[in-house]
């Protein structure tokens, strides 16, 4: 199992969620985060923004599905400008469902 964490633009988040749901990846967690990338925030005229609001989407899937998930996120969150976000994938060893106390997704 792998955990995919995607940091995307807040205005693109719902599009990404809908696209993922269409492909069958319904379960996810969404959180509002503040961050910055390599460009160290953004400068618009005189005002310098050190940290920018983003949305982090977190979903856990079987390892073989990560490529598809990343592709969906990349396709829908893409605008071509700085600040489109990043996708991180990390390993998950075990998953439990609390309701049934069963192991696995």
């Amino acid at each position, binding site marked *: 199992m792998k955990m995919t964490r995607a940091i995307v633009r807040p205005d693109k988040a719902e599009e990404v969620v809908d696209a993922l*749901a269409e492909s069958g990846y319904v379960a996810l967690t*969404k*959180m509002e985060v503040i961050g910055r990338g390599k460009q160290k925030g953004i400068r618009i005229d005189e005002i310098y923004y050190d940290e920018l609001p983003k949305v982090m989407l977190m979903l856990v899937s079987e390892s073989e599905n990560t490529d598809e998930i990343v592709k969906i996120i990349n396709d829908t969150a893409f605008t071509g400008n700085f600040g489109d976000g990043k996708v991180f994938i990390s390993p998950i060893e075990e*998953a*439990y*469902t*609390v*309701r049934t106390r069963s192991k696995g997704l």
Partner: protein
Amino acid sequence: MKEITAIIRPNKINKTKKVLDTLGFPAMTAQRVLGRGKQKAIIGEVTMDIDTTKLHEKEGTMRYIPKRMLTLLVPDQDVQLVVEAIMRVNQTGQKGDGRIFVSPLEETIRVRTGEKGDKAII
């Protein structure tokens, strides 16, 4: 070391904290998150005054459900204990009880002292 990420009901957070406290795992990070599961969010668990019969009718009528995410770092041998404790406290049998993920962790460092590894989380 392992990282345990538990997504649970917001109203169970105090009890979970108390139980983990008595077991000797007081350290954690808690975060308010929104999420949904396989059923695409069911309104059932949100209490409100308005008439919700229509919303109860089918699954997926609500976009997200508010949840609490707990992140705990525990030594390898305590993973089962913590997972079991969280499951026992949070199990209601209804959909939406949450999920627990266990992932490996390479290094931990306590900022104050610079201690590394298991020492930094106990």
